[in-house]
């Protein structure tokens, strides 16, 4: 990266050209303005509007009236909301841990050189590019208790048939399996980027000192890729909290409400019951949950001393 900022560049030009009419540092704001307008229209306006709606009693097709904090208080005493919050946190925790583990293992493998590496890496990345709804439909067929291929595979190794997404006790782990299948590649790519920036020398001296492979990983690789693991974890947390397509396409929150996350409950409130005011309050609280969790993770990242290794 160049060390010269536009301001510095401007100063240099002045120095060179002396007292002559001087060109100012280039003005970059016009480049940003169109994007700011679009962001304002498509992102900031909806937020302002959502905040306003959340303090109103408003079901589509009926008249609207000011409600103050009513929707928020209703949220606090809504058992279905607390249940959906619990589902969201369980789903998110599992959907972060599993892809983090498999993604890191995959990155360590793909960091090495072996035949057909490029092709295999390409296939490995495909799940995250596949259309989630299409993927979800095929998984639904695979999860089918009688005709599904998964129960057949289990029967081959002597495990009894499961009900997967059709049973309240197994629905969340089953959905997490799909989420893990789809998003492990993203973790792999981020960690792979981290591994590429790890210098060779410490490993050579560790080799000479007789450190085994596990010790090298634990005391050299792991600390050096820690910032990248944190980034992967933050992104995965945000995406898992917001997960919608897979859950909606496979279970719509069912059976019953066993897999209803906040996002699904929010969708049902706003677009099945058309309770716009209550749905907006839920959207606000949901956003606060996401920002709070991301912020906690970011704080953890700041505290990690290895942050400076990134050079940013």
């Amino acid at each position, binding site marked *: 990266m160049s060390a010269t900022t536009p301001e510095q560049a401007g100063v240099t030009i002045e120095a060179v050209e002396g007292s002559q009419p001087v060109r100012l540092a280039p003005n970059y704001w016009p*480049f940003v303005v169109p994007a700011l307008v679009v962001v304002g229209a498509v992102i900031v306006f909806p937020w302002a509007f959502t905040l306003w709606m959340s303090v109103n009693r408003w079901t589509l097709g009926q008249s609207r009236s000011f409600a103050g904090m009513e929707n928020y208080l209703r949220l606090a005493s809504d058992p279905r909301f607390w249940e959906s919050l619990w589902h969201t946190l369980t789903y998110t925790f599992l959907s972060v841990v599993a892809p983090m583990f498999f993604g890191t293992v995959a990155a360590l493998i793909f960091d090495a050189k072996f035949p057909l590496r490029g092709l295999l890496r390409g296939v490995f990345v495909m799940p995250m590019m596949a259309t989630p709804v299409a993927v979800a439909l095929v998984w639904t067929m695979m999860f089918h208790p009688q005709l599904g291929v998964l129960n057949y595979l289990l029967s081959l190794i002597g495990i009894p048939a499961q009900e997967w997404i059709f049973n309240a006790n197994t629905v969340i782990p089953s959905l997490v399996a799909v989420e893990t299948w789809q998003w492990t590649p993203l973790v792999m790519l*981020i960690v792979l980027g981290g591994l590429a920036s790890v210098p060779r020398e410490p490993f050579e001296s560790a080799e000479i000192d007789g450190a085994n492979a596990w010790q090298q990983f634990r005391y050299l690789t792991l600390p050096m890729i820690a910032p990248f693991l944190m980034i992967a974890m933050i992104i995965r947390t945000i995406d898992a909290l917001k997960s919608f397509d897979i859950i909606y396409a496979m279970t719509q929150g069912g059976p019953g409400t066993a897999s209803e996350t906040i996002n699904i409950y*929010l969708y049902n409130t706003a677009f099945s019951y058309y309770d716009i005011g209550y749905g907006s309050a839920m959207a606000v609280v*949901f956003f606060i949950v996401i920002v709070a969790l991301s912020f906690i993770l970011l704080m953890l990242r700041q505290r990690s001393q290895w942050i400076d290794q990134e050079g940013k």
Partner: protein
Amino acid sequence: MSSRLLNQIGLFFAALVIVSPAILFFLWMISLSLKFEIDNGAYPPILVPEHLAWSNYAKVFEENNFLLYFWNSVLVTGTATLLALLIGVPAGYGIARLKAERSAVVIMIARMTPGLSYLIPLFLLFQWIGILGTLWPQIIIHLVVTVPIVVWVMIGYFETTPMELEEAANIDGASSWQVFRLVALPIAKPGIVVAFILSIIFSWNNFVFGVVLASRETRTLPVAVYNMLSYEQVSWGPLAAAALVVTLPVLVLTLFAQRQIVAGLTAGAVKGG
């Protein structure tokens, strides 16, 4: 030397194991889509049937209007991506040169915001303006997906392109716009390709916006395939064929542009913290 070879073979098989869920899934998807109902209901399951049911694909296009929905998807994704490039590439340039870290935070917040919270107000807005029956609501709301991707990738790209040429052009009296168009933009072509591909993929795959905003004639492919499940008699062959038709374009794009995608996602994501 032979231990090195053994090591390589070991790594190859380890990679094969970790890739196998992806391989097996897509193989099974293809198998489902090419089997008649009787083979899809067979136990034990059949991977390669005696008779291939190409008619499943014909059914998808003939009975489910998929040509229209395919065209809708192309229009929505194409327009939203082109608009995003038009405003996102200059924005990425401006932010990178201004070193405006706060703008990057705005983009990050856009990523944190659940899509549904845009949907309620914009749904009402589109209703009031009276454009709900057209493709425009979907094109506009897809900008929420495409603009942040393009800006994000381009910030990362412009930060790594050298400043010296731009400074030289600047001293020679070129305006900011000329510097951007004639110096910075040509160098940034590979970055634009990455932004273009990623924007296409994530806009194409989007489901939640369409499920709320699309009417019968304005459905995109992900919504259309989901509706097949809920309203038609569920038969697995045509459903799997439809799922494959929806996702095939992005999968092909992924295989062909693997290198760019990997580079873009790695760089973009790493800056994402």
